[in-house]
């Protein structure tokens, strides 16, 4: 067992180095200095308290999304609809804020209600994917893609239609909320301590849920073999739906944070692609909740650090996307290699 873990780690390390090597190669071909690029990325992510705070701003919603996805992954579900779930969370939050901002309720209560609405929105969208699967026979991948599409269309319609800024017809976003309706931020930073609390709580809860409860065990059984789980008395579709709902809960919370703590309004790409990024993270950590935090941190740091590339080296920051892609590719490749190696030499 111990050997196995070491072995696992070794393979991951190899994957990481390979990804780094290949990205460097591409940079060299593009005429860019790889070492300074990496130094810039690192410095850009961790070089100051401010940039560190910005990394955390990305890290927390990503962690929330990943937490949710770990649940659906465990239940053997490919919750591709996660992007839409984040978006719906954001839409519901915005709706609640718009509805209540004129009211006499205290701001903290408005924010709280809006976040609850966001959570409900995410869960609702996830449960839709679940219902489509259990009762409509629609594979959750296709259902999710469809629901993502609808969520985007809904956002655009709201932004360009009913929620447009007075006198303006623009896809850039709705009217920003007054800063009384922002989640409180740390002085001088863009980071809200609440994000950190939610992110940390989410990953801890999911870790506990998956590794220490009967519910988690049942989800795992469904993920490994639905037929067997059912015969052993696990109410399979009910648990699948619940997994969806929980994942949507976290995704919705991430969407709510995007509105109340980051953008303070609804914009077309409100999910910031964290859904797909979260899928990558969940895939990379291979169901192990504890690894989700550092891996998500890595991606968040890459996101923020790569802003330095155009500033300092006149490089396109999509290079960080190349690195991300390479990483995923190589981890999956070495995972395959590892499995084969284990089977033969186990």
């Amino acid at each position, binding site marked *: 067992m111990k050997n196995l873990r070491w072995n696992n780690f070794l393979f991951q390390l190899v994957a990481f180095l390979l990804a780094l090597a290949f990205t460097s190669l591409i940079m060299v071909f593009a005429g860019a200095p790889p070492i300074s690029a990496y130094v810039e990325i690192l410095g850009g992510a961790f070089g100051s308290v*401010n940039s560190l705070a*910005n990394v955390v701003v990305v890290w927390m919603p990503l962690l929330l999304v990943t937490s949710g996805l770990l649940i659906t992954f465990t239940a053997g579900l490919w919750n591709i609809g996660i992007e839409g779930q984040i978006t719906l969370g954001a839409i519901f939050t915005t709706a609640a804020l718009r509805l209540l901002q004129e009211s006499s309720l205290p701001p903290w209560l408005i924010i709280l209600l809006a976040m609850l609405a966001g959570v409900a929105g995410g869960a609702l969208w996830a449960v839709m994917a679940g219902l489509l699967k259990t009762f409509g026979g629609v594979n959750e991948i296709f259902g999710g893609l469809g629901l993502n599409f609808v969520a985007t269309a809904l956002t655009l319609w709201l932004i360009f239609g009913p929620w447009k800024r007075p006198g303006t017809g623009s896809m850039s976003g709705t009217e920003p909320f007054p800063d009384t309706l922002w989640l409180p931020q740390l002085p001088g930073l863009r980071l809200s301590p609440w994000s950190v609390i939610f992110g940390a709580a989410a990953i801890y809860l999911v870790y506990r849920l998956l590794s220490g409860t009967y519910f988690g065990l049942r989800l795992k059984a469904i993920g490994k073999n639905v037929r067997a789980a059912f015969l052993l008395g696990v109410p399979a579709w009910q648990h699948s739906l619940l997994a969806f709902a929980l994942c949507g809960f976290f995704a919705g919370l991430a969407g709510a944070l995007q509105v109340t703590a980051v953008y303070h309004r609804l914009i*077309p790409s*409100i999910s910031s*692609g*964290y859904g797909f990024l979260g899928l990558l993270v969940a895939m990379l950590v291979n169901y192990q909740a504890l690894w989700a935090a550092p891996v998500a941190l890595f991606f968040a740091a890459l996101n*923020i650090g790569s*802003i330095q590339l155009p500033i*300092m080296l006149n490089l396109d920051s999509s290079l960080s996307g190349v690195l991300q892609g390479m990483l995923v590719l190589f981890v999956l490749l070495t995972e395959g290699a590892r499995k084969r190696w284990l089977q033969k030499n186990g």
Partner: protein
Amino acid sequence: MSRKTLWILVSLLLVVAMLGAACQQKKAAGPITFGMLLVGPYNDHGWSQAHYDAGKYVETKLAGSKMIYVDKVNPADRPGTTPAQLAEELVAKGATLVVFNSDDMKDSATEFSKAHPDIKVIMASGDQVWKEGKAYVELPNMINIMGRMEYGKMVAGCAAALTSQTGKIGYLGPLINDETRRLTASAYLGAKYCWTKYLGKDAAALSFKVTWIGFWFNIPGVTSDPTQVADDFFNSGYDVVISGIDTTEAVAEAKKLSAAGQKVWAIPYDYVGSCEEGKEICLGVPYFNWGPAYVKTITSAADGSWKSNWQWNAPDWKDINNLDTSAVGFKKGNALSADAASKVDEFIKELAGGLNLWKGPINLQDGSAYLKDGEVGTDQQVWYLPQLLQGMEGQSVPSK
């Protein structure tokens, strides 16, 4: 301690160790480093490139000045970031002045200016610090700069009207706001003037239609596709398309259709060099020349004479294409016929001589009178045009 926790600790330590290595920051050389946030790619042959080139111009004119920039500053290209946050990155790299180059960054620019009173801010196209404006906020460290592109658009409209054989002009609009309404309306006014005055035709026989894509440039899946919009124009009898967006899809599309034998033309926007992509169909381009204003403003930041103000810079009527003096210009394209070109020149001369098309009677799209007969529009009336004008087709999104 479990092995897992141990590993997490080790990886965290690694990160911290690397931090140290990465921490030494580069201090900028020279007296002033200014940062620029470009909403699109720095080489978009449009709005963002006009700013980028202006920055380069400043570097040559102001010894020791240095530009650093981030381009593609929009939530689709840089998920999870805000302009204010990116401005801070520029400040961290030594910038003491930051240019926010898009209307889309307006809220963020205000937020940033408030949070960083020691950093100078140029908000291009904004009106926050216009005392007589509708959105005034006191921000001592901010200057608004905009060119009077209305003139450029009038000339563009004129060139379009003189060239069109169908009498149908399409306007590829970005998003809808005060700025785009007034620019589109200006193009219409120019077109109508030349159509009736130089060609002697009936104003009612001129159709002028706007289709908005929803943003300054194409964001796949979010905005309408500008190529598609241009194509629809050309294929429904609109033989000239005036572009109001930051990028050059209209030119590319006209070039394609013209190569296939269709008689169509296009007028791009923003950037002096944007006709290059399709010389054979380009009637000319109304462009911004941010350089002179930036040199002046950045100099004032460097020598301490900075004072918050709102600038709406007119062209240099002696020569609107003088890159050292004129804020706005019109560069005629190869596809403009000699006859039309001379009429365009005449029109420019008339404008230089004091012709004002923003003079009543002007009715709004819904038929209500905006400027009475003989009444000359004030800056406020032009800047905050609430609707498109009577005679124009397309969505207005009226502002009360």
